[in-house]
């Protein structure tokens, strides 16, 4: 299924890697993504090491990455750009202070979604990234 998703063939769902250290949230995120016909959850990770290993293995199209994440969100984003350069990352954070947003931006993450905003906004951010050339 990952092969189908990551070879970019038309109609194939986008593969998504979910990274959050809160198990309840991770499970909920999975359900929300699975409910989308154009997306597919290929793996979930609850710390930086696992996230990088799974990103290297699955080369997902999209990654949802917690900012206050074991292994540090911005650092994980940087390392992910090396081990899976084609993956596009959405920051998903309970913090919206300037510092957190700027640190993610300087790690190359342009989409920043605050936890607590609607699912629609998170999904819209994921689709925007997926549709970038």
């Amino acid at each position, binding site marked *: 299924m990952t092969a189908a998703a990551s070879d970019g063939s038309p109609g194939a769902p986008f593969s998504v890697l979910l990274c959050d250290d*809160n198990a309840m949230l991770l499970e*909920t995120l999975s359900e929300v993504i699975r409910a989308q016909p154009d997306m597919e959850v290929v793996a979930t990770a609850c710390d930086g090491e696992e996230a990088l290993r799974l990103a290297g293995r699955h080369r997902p199209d999209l990654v949802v990455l917690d900012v206050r994440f074991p292994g540090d969100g911005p650092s994980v984003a940087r390392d992910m750009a090396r081990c899976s350069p084609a993956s596009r990352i959405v920051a998903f954070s309970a913090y*919206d202070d300037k510092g957190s947003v700027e640190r993610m931006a300087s790690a190359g993450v342009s989409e920043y979604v605050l936890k607590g905003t609607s699912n629609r906004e998170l999904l819209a951010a994921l689709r925007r990234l997926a549709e970038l050339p």
Partner: protein
Amino acid sequence: MSETAFTLLVQGVLDYGIFMLDPQGYIISWNAGAERIKGYRAADILGQHFSVFYPPEDQSSGKPQWELETAVAEGRLEDEGWRVRQDGSRFWANVVITALWDEKGVLQGFGKVTRDMSERRAAQQALSERRRLFDHLVQAQETERRRIAWDVHDDSIQAMVAVGMRLELLAERVPEAHAAELQRLDATVREAIGRLRSLTFRLHPPGIDRHGLIEGLTSHLDDVVRSSWGMTCSFDHQLDRTPTPETAITIFRIVQEALLNVHKHARASRVDIRVRSADGGILTYVADDGTGEPMPKDRTREHFGVIEMRERAETAGGWWSMHSRPGTGTTVEFWVPNPLPLPPPEPGDGAP
């Protein structure tokens, strides 16, 4: 004044030990103050070497001799340190030794003036101890608030985010009649998340512990007062010295509480903050243009906020006041000392 009268004056002084040493350091005169401070009567001490007043460690390091040599070389020596009374107890002394020469330039001996500084030293130490306790109290409170903020963030908010996400998901799957109700529920949950988020922000404002008072207040005014509350505000500051972290936190927390009062009760559109150095400390004003009616319906909360502000200022050794005039707004004004950072405690300070 006759020589006799002068001798009587010196003999009678009680607050200072005033006595003379011969050129070798043997005691040749004694007064009432010296007896009061050191405990020796004249008959017990005349003819003894003045090194008996020094603790054993100073005697063995040759401090008494070194002090006489310095007085000879420089005319005068001043020292503060431990001295020993006749009964063996120690006191903290200020000592001045002056070399005395005759008109031919021959050393005649030394004048020695000793003051007992024990009380002043004890008062200073009590003050330092109070400062240390205060600093510790402020830091402990901040640590606790930070911990609560993190708990709320990492646990309560995340759980509610999950609830909100599931409600939204569910709303897409149920018939439209139920969907509207679920959406209302979802909106309530998201509003609660917003409130919890601002609670954690209040508990632990980013910036204050990393960037200091002025930057901490500036970003609080930007992020909260202007952005969230939509109020106009000005911030004027003139500090001649950066406050210690504890003083900075104290000022920040009082201003934060005062601003929260303005937001909740004053019906104001504008607030002006002024922070400046005054009277060896820092004077701060928070003035709004609201109704000037300080008594809100929610008396308990107001009461708590006022008590917290006053207690913070007074615990820091300062004062706090609030004045209101109907129609012209409310001003919170407080002053806290701006002490230098405490040196680490000296291990020798606990001496008897």
